[in-house]
């Protein structure tokens, strides 16, 4: 039988991988993807807690997940728009080369 | 009447009878496998018939015979095509990304087949009755875009990449009006379950069925849905992802042999799936068009409607020339999208206005007037729609 901890561990693993990606990759798009993965891990947590919680009929977890997906989609759209603007400005999406504010 | 019911339900009965032979533990699985295999066989056969119908029909529209060599009247042409596709050499470009190149057609066909899981083919004959069936349909359809991109990108050819980019841009643009057109039905039906939506339409006032297409908003929604569905399945006049004249064949240039056949199957299965969805949402699914025609089996009605819609697709392909990319985008964002939004308003009014001719008048005006205005103001790159002048040819 799958218990809650299985889901939570999986979600923690996804979160960690997303974080590792966001920290190690240098391409802005992949950093964004890493952040999306971390958001998704949180969503999995929400759903799992909802399903294993005492009041699944309250739909709280599902609602949270739906809003979270919506916000994540908006974030992705704006983020990718920003990356496009960045690319137009600097001709690169390599975050190590974006050093205009370093002084 | 009982005999009609028996004929109507014969596949369901047969399924139960066959499944009874396996142990109780495996029964759900056996039932599912049986259903899936039946759907695959039936729709692949229908695919073959559609191809034949299309080639014959297009030929007749252009005053040609169409295929008439293989078998009597050429009815074995799809078999010949299939054999040819299978025994043909499978050429993969040297620089292609082999794994992705292989996965793309598979993904497209799998996604096309998954669509049929929620289509009620007859009374009690849907593979699954998902709570969110309509949503499932659109979620799966959106996977096709990914397959298209994979095909175009993995081939490492500029034409296929252009084709893929065009196809994705087009499919994203037309997915929005398609979803919104479907939303109108969902609003009135109050459910996302395809089975429930069909059951709601399968009642009659006198002889007239309660199909959603027989309302102002339903008719508009149906037309908008079909236009968007044509674009979604990359059919003429929206077939510029494969535009032979400029980018050879679009995203599947670099495919040959059976993989090409898979793309072909995927395209037709997608077209049939969207048609089936239009039938489910607007044309009353498996219900008979008149109350006195209910003796005919429900699955029969479904397939009659499906073939009729497919003929409509073929007719349109035989008639309309291909759009230009900017025209395509303008049409989607400046005409279809506003129309669907207006249609949603009309649907909401229809839901809450009292029954009567005023409801018809208000909702009808609400879709006809914007149609006329939008159609008038639609702008093809700075020029109004007008009779085309050929500056040098005349």
């Amino acid at each position, binding site marked *: 039988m799958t218990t809650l901890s299985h889901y939570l561990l999986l979600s923690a693993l996804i979160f960690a991988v997303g974080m590792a990606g966001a920290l*190690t990759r240098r391409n802005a798009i992949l950093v964004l993807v890493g952040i999306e993965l971390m958001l998704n891990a949180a969503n999995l947590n929400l759903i*799992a807690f909802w*399903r294993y919680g005492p009041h699944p009929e309250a739909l709280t977890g599902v609602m949270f997940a739906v809003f979270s*997906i919506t916000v994540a989609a908006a974030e992705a759209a704006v983020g990718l728009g920003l990356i496009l603007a960045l690319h137009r400005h600097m001709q690169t999406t390599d975050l190590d080369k974006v050093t205009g504010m370093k002084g | 009447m009982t005999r009609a019911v028996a004929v109507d339900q014969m596949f369901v009965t047969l399924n139960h009878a066959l499944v009874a032979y396996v142990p109780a533990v495996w029964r759900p699985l056996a039932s599912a496998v049986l259903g899936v295999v039946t759907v695959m066989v039936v729709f692949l056969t229908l695919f073959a018939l559609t191809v034949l119908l299309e080639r014959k029909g297009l030929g007749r529209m252009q005053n040609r015979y169409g295929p008439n060599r293989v078998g009597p009247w050429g009815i074995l042409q799809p078999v010949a095509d299939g054999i040819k596709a299978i025994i043909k050499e499978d050429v993969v470009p040297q620089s292609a990304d082999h794994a992705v190149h292989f996965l793309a057609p598979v993904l497209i066909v799998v996604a096309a087949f998954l669509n049929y899981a929620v289509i009620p083919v007859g009374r009690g004959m849907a593979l699954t009755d998902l709570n969110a069936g309509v949503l499932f349909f659109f*979620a799966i359809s959106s996977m096709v875009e990914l397959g298209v991109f994979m095909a175009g990108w993995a081939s490492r050819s500029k034409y296929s990449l252009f084709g893929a980019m065009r196809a994705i841009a087009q499919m994203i643009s037309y997915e929005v009006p398609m979803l919104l057109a479907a939303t109108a039905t969902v609003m009135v039906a109050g459910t996302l*379950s395809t089975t429930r939506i069909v059951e709601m339409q399968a009642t009659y006032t006198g002889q007239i069925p309660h199909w959603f297409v027989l309302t102002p908003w339903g008719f508009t929604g149906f037309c908008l849905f079909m236009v968007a569905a044509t674009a979604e399945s990359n059919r003429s006049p929206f077939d510029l992802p494969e535009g032979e004249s400029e980018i050879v064949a679009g995203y599947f240039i670099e495919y040959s042999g059976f993989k090409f056949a898979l793309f072909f199957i995927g395209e037709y299965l997608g077209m049939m799936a969207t048609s089936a969805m239009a039938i489910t949402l607007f044309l009353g699914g498996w219900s008979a068009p008149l109350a006195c025609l209910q003796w005919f089996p429900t699955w029969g009605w479904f397939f009659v409607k499906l073939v009729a819609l497919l003929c409509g697709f073929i007719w349109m392909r035989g008639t309309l020339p291909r759009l230009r990319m900017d025209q395509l985008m303008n049409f989607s964002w400046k005409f279809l999208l506003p129309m669907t939004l207006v249609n949603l308003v009309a649907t909401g009014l229809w839901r809450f206005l009292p029954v009567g001719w005023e409801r018809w008048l208000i909702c009808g005006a609400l879709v006809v007037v914007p149609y006329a205005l939008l159609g008038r103001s639609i702008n093809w790159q700075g020029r109004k729609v007008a009779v085309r002048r050929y500056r040098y040819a005349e």
Partner: protein
Amino acid sequence: MTIGFLILAIVTMAGVVAAMSMRHLIHCVLALTLGFAGLAMLYLQLEAQFVGLTQLLVYVGGVAILAVFAIMTTHSSEPVARPGTSYWLGGCVVATAVFILLAHAIEKSGVGARTMPAAPVGGVKEIGVALMSGYILPLEIVGLLLTAALVGAVVVATGEGSGKR
């Protein structure tokens, strides 16, 4: 642990890890869609049908395609990944530490032993009703946010340089 969960977990993890470690950006995004699809399946397994299908629609059909478009339009490529550099090592160490911390917290909290209660009635209709009643304010705010994001993304992506728009 059931077989279904195990398979889905492995597929999802494979997709996610590949998305973060493959060299070619397009491969990364394709692997990412695998991860997203796996997550959607996990939602479906948890009987959150609506969320699962929305996940599929939004992430596989939307975000992944958007990312692909961004990669194609920016001609993005990354210099060869360099495992072993301090940069890479630091990221991995931090991520591992976070994972260990989370795992530890999960083990300690004691919620993990919970087993699945009976299937809830939470259908799509209930979600719709909830959205329109108790969650109406968040819904409106999200609608506003999406509009703002839409406009913002268009403004940012078209750029200040092109004066004709």
